[in-house]
């Protein structure tokens, strides 16, 4: 099994989620994060004090998936989330040693 972490632009979330549903991905976990990268942040000015944090709001999606489905998920996210502008984000894939569904105690692919 794989554990996929995707960092995307916030307004792309709905689109990505729908695309993944189409692929049969039943679940995912989403959180708000701040991204630091090549994309330049906006400058904020408060009474003359300028802050350019370069920390931009992003959304992180975490998906546990079977080894089969994982590559398709990565590809689909890459295609859907891309705007071809800097700051579109990244997809990271890690190996997942085990997965458990809390409700039933099921483990492995069936737990996803």
């Amino acid at each position, binding site marked *: 099994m794989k554990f996929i972490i995707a960092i995307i632009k916030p*307004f792309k979330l*709905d689109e990505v989620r729908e695309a993944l549903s189409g692929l049969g991905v039943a679940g995912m976990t989403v959180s708000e994060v701040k991204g630091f990268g090549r994309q330049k942040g*906006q400058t*904020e*000015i408060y009474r003359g004090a300028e802050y350019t944090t370069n920390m931009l709001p992003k959304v992180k999606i975490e998906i546990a998936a079977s080894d089969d489905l994982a590559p398709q998920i990565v590809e689909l996210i890459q295609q859907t989330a891309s705007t071809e502008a800097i700051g579109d984000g990244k997809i990271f894939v890690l190996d997942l040693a085990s997965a458990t569904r809390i409700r039933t105690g099921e483990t492995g692919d069936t737990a996803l």
Partner: protein
Amino acid sequence: MIRKMIGGVAGAGLALGAASTAFAQAAMVQAPTVEQQATMVNKGDTTWMLVSSVLVLMMSIPGLALFYGGLVRTKNMLSVLMQVFMIVSIAGLLWATYGYSLAFTGGSPFIGGFGKVLMAGVTSGTYAATFSNNVYIPELSYFVFQMTFAMITPALFIGAFAERIKFTPLMVFTVLWSTLAYYPIAHMVWYWAGPDFLAGQPGDWGYLYGKGALDFAGGTVVHINAGIAGLVGCLVIGPRLGFGKESTPPHSLVMTMIGASLLWVGWFGFNAGSNLESNGVAAVAFVNTMLATCAAAVSWAMIEQIVHKKPSMLGAASGAVAGLVAITPASGLGAPMTSIVLGLIVSPVCFFFVTTVKSKFKYDDTLDVFGIHCVGGIIGALGTAIVADPKLGGQGYFDYTVFPAVAVAPEAYSISSQFMVQLQAVGITLLWSGIVTGVLLFVLDKTMGLRPSEEVEREGLDINEHGERAYNY
């Protein structure tokens, strides 16, 4: 602020008498000089007008700003607050520059003159007429009370195209729209020579005032006027990116609730203050405002209970605002019980507009300026014809072309003919303000451009237009 009103039990003499028995014995003075007017001022009235002005300012900032701001997404929160704050400031300066003169001096029936430009001749020693013979208030208190109306009205329409307009063109539009739509309509509906002067100067009035239109505190002048501007604006500017696809839940209904509450609280200055005197009729306007609002909040919650099974805070707040809008033109004219009926009716109609009609015609009136202010204002303006009927406990109107003014005889009041007058006032306001708005925005769009770039709209107006974030928790 309407042509035909008077306080107290039975007419001009007594209304005055309530203020000071000393006057009751004194002979009435037609067309008093300024020196005479100075002796016809009551400090209770002056206090009431100053307090009412404070309350109306509080309606716009922070009231309206929060009511609207809570409903947009976080990334556009400050843009809404800033738009309201700056419109209020600019419209205020404009009022002193030439707005007051254009709205409240004689001239033509359609627009005032330039006699009071830069507040020429408006001092601590000049006085404004009220709706009672021989009762005056300091002109500056009238000036500033009316100013707060001119400040909030253009702030109302921004809700219709919130989250997608550039700041600078909006400010330019505010100046132009105030000049071409607000001042003329205010003049047409509210300008008249005053109760001690009209007998001697028949015809010195605004066009709709002369027709007999009733608008106690601004149903046509404020709400329909701004509401139709909002609708036209959101059509010209177009829907937000992702409209109907992305979900755009209100970022803070808490702010919206605070805003709605402060609108309610401040609206007593708006409505009861429009009586210009602190007497029994001010209390009527106050009570009518309270009851219509309660009724409309309840009826909006009930219709949600029926349709969605869940009465919502946003619904209750929307209902309250709809009730406040509807009672505005009728506030000093209706009776408490008919005000309740007006409140009960307005919410279902507005609910129908913001849900069914809006989703049917797919215009993106972001914060329902049309559905609540314009529709609610129309219901109020037309309903005024009914609730003002003395036979239903209403206050009727006064004939100020005789001196002292006389109240309409209950049997002489005709709902249907008043209704036609009201319809005309509504129609003229819709047409005039709609056309002015459409033309102005079209021109501004071609010249300055109204809409920010897609990227800016996506990232939010706060950071891009104002260089700030609303929250940095």
